[in-house]
């Protein structure tokens, strides 16, 4: 028996192409900005107020400004155009790329698989995440562990910046780590590890409570993914503008 003969790829009359297009443009602009800042290799540290951009944290090579290397300089200076963030970006990027929300976002927006619901995808074959390379998405939890460590580093940076007083930059760094923490905690792997993998919640009241709280955050995972991503860029931009002397930090104390 055959399917109903309908030639149109979709009969949707709404602007179904708008959300994937917006996603695509948004991710593209952020990638360009992040790549530019990564290879710029400068303006990541404000010595006067101890602001370190999250994009360069931790700064682990010998070309880092010594005061910006809160955790020491473990590696020699990188050759050529390579910059310190390249050591941490694989983990941060890996975390976002294997994130269940971002997977949905770029499968739809960049790979059109599917571009929108009930709109036919252009590919003739589809195997999803059953084989290499996409089967590697299952490693998401390892990136979650790595990103959690980097989050702790960012929190340390944000808190230690208060040693110089209080300025707008401090507030921005604080909001940034709060959003990053909310995004990281709302992760589906985190939800699973905290309690989701249990079959009997009643035997593990503490983990059940954690699972309940994380589930609430998890409902907002998409919003947190975007908010934290955009805010990291804004934080970085602010630090870059202050570090380059383009603007001066708005100080409340000192």
């Amino acid at each position, binding site marked *: *028996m*055959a*399917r*109903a*003969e*309908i030639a*149109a790829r*979709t*009969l*949707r*009359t*709404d602007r179904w192409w708008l959300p994937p297009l917006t996603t695509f443009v948004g991710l593209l602009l952020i990638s360009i900005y992040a790549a530019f800042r990564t290879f710029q290799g400068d303006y990541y540290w404000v010595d006067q107020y101890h602001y370190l951009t999250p994009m360069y944290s931790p700064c682990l090579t010998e070309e880092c400004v010594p005061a910006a290397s809160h955790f020491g300089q473990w590696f020699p200076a990188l050759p050529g155009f390579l910059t310190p963030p390249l050591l941490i970006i694989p983990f941060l990027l890996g975390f976002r790329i294997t994130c*269940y929300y971002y*997977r*949905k976002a770029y*499968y*739809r927006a960049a790979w059109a*698989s*599917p571009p929108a*619901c*009930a*709109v*036919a*995808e252009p*590919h003739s*074959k*589809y*195997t*999803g*995440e*059953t*084989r290499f390379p*996409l*089967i590697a998405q*299952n*490693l*998401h*939890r390892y990136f979650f562990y790595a990103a959690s460590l980097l989050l702790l580093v960012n929190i340390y940076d944000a808190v230690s910046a208060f040693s110089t007083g209080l300025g707008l930059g401090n507030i921005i760094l604080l909001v940034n780590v709060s959003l990053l923490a909310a995004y990281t905690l709302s992760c*589906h*792997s985190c939800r*699973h590890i905290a309690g*989701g*993998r249990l*079959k*009997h*919640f*009643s035997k593990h009241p503490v983990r*059940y409570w954690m699972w309940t709280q994380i589930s609430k955050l*998890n*409902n907002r995972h998409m919003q947190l993914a975007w908010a934290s991503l955009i805010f990291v860029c804004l934080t970085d931009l602010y630090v870059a503008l202050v570090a380059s002397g383009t603007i001066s930090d708005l100080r409340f104390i000192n």
Partner: protein
Amino acid sequence: MSYQGKFRVWRGDDSGGALEDFTVEVNEGEVVLDIIHRLQATQAPDLAVRWNCKAGKCGSCSAEINGRPRLLCMTRMSVFQESETITVTPMRTFPIIRDLVTDVSFNYTKAREVPSFAPPKDLAPGEYRMQQVDVERSQEFRKCIECFLCQNTCHVVRDHEENKEAFSGPRFLMRVAELEMHPLDTADRVDQAQDDHGLGYCNITKCCSEVCPEHIHITDNALIPMKERVADRKYDPVVWLGNKLFRRS
């Protein structure tokens, strides 16, 4: 207030068909199914449509309205402009029988492939005891009315007929999750989900959740938790080692 609405309805069977134009009266408070019934009563007495409850509870009237998978009885005419032409087509993913009626037996086949609830052997019916918090999670999935809109919309089978063999679809992967999370089920459902029901085909793009008339969080609460359990079992050497060393299960 009533007006004359413009409709395009797919008519035909498995040997072919096309969209046909109709003008039908629309009254205040009506749903698309009312219009289809009026069309049947006044202009196209042989128009085939499947329905039962008219209350969004039987899951019979699934179709596609302006290209969006929906229940005919739960789609209010008031969401459309009076000037709009409303296109009504059968679900695309299943073989057509006639007009708006498709053969959904793919779903019954997949349902039969899920091994049934397996309580502990020594527990007699009537002796089942469980905590509310333990059954709660799987109870969300019991809201399913088996309209198969999720199955119809999922691109894995909608766009790739050849995947029907390997992939059971969101509704039945959710059934596997429901049993896996049930406090009294003893069967091992994790390998089954991946190997027998094709969980790996799902790329969590969430169209099933988007169309579900019961608003079940199919992807977030059933499919992703199952993917995490599969990762525990198959792709996480640390958990695997922990289970071996401490004999957990």
